[in-house]
């Protein structure tokens, strides 16, 4: 299912977040977290260094708690496959302010590049749609990412899901902060929530 002219993952995330405004961004374990760090550190970023399979559900809890803010989950195909049931839960809850973007390199880049199910048979857009997220699509150009970035600001028309086939090149790791308590406390602080 590989295609020519695949997008660069860093360019995709940079473009998605270039004008992020107040958006809260959750990045899944692995390369997605490095992509989010590479796009620029931000108090409203949640970098995951574990909890594989949980990115979409963290996004859902955040989206339900903050319905006026755009909540964006950026994750990889492997992380999404592990949490596939969460698409059914999102499909049932239909949070209008939740956007999910999967960076699909058809491989587990963090563990040595083993091929993932999306390389051969699994269609995540089909899964998302079948789980009750009708606004689910494949994205293949930066122009579409720019349009998607505008859409993600609309907190009245979600949830939406996009899968973007990206170049499989392993890029230099850009390490975000990995102290979970710091990241969490900073994000809560940005939303006006004091420590206990």
């Amino acid at each position, binding site marked *: 299912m590989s295609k020519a002219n695949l997008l660069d993952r860093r360019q995709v995330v940079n473009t998605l977040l270039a004008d992020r405004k107040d958006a809260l961004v959750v990045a899944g374990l692995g390369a997605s977290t490095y992509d989010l760090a590479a796009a620029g550190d931000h108090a409203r970023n949640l970098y995951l260094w574990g909890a*594989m399979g949980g990115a979409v559900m963290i996004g859902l*809890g*955040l989206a339900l708690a903050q319905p006026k803010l755009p909540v964006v989950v950026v994750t990889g195909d492997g992380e999404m496959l592990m949490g596939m049931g969460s698409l059914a839960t999102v499909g049932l809850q239909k949070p209008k302010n939740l956007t999910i973007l999967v960076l699909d390199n058809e491989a587990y880049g963090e563990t040595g590049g083993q091929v993932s199910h999306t390389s051969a048979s699994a269609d995540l857009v089909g899964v998302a749609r079948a789980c009750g997220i009708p606004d689910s699509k494949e994205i293949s150009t930066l122009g579409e990412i720019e349009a998607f970035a505008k859409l993600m600001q609309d907190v009245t028309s979600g949830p939406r899901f996009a899968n973007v086939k990206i170049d499989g090149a392993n890029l230099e790791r850009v390490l975000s902060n990995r102290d979970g308590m710091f990241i*969490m406390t900073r994000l809560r602080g940005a939303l006006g929530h004091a420590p206990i």
Partner: protein
Amino acid sequence: MVESAPVMSVSWPAHVFHELQTARVVQVAYVPDAGHGALIDLCHADTAMRAVSLTTEEEGVAMLAGAWLGGQRGALLLQSSGVGNCINMLALNQECRIPLLALVTMRGEWGEFNPWQVPMGSSTQGVFELSGIRVLRATEPAEVKDVMEAAASQAYNACTPTALLLSQRLIGTKVFVK
């Protein structure tokens, strides 16, 4: 033999629900469960709560972490058989110091009919403790209110991830009469 209704002289689910309200819990994540049936219905009926049905229990651990990040309190309703599903996701609570209030209906510990429930029921408390979650237990209907209040308080006032085990003896009492 005729199976009568379960004996619930004290309506413990109502006490649990009241404590959830008092603790200002908003997001209630659950995997459908007979023992939690009445509580789930109460949560769905409360417009101040958002009851969310999950496909598997670890989804709830992650969702409630997101809720806390966003400034809302949550509770996870599950059966002991689902506790094992949560283990890796509980890293969120330890590493990010995110509170958890898990209400667990126990199986496999009191007159169980289904042997498949016994392994996870036997290890539920140990699994939680090894995962950094404090465990409280309620066995008698009359103590549910106090134990639930203590669990919610330490979860949210002390930011301490807590599981309340609701004994099978509490939830499963049935009377058989001719």
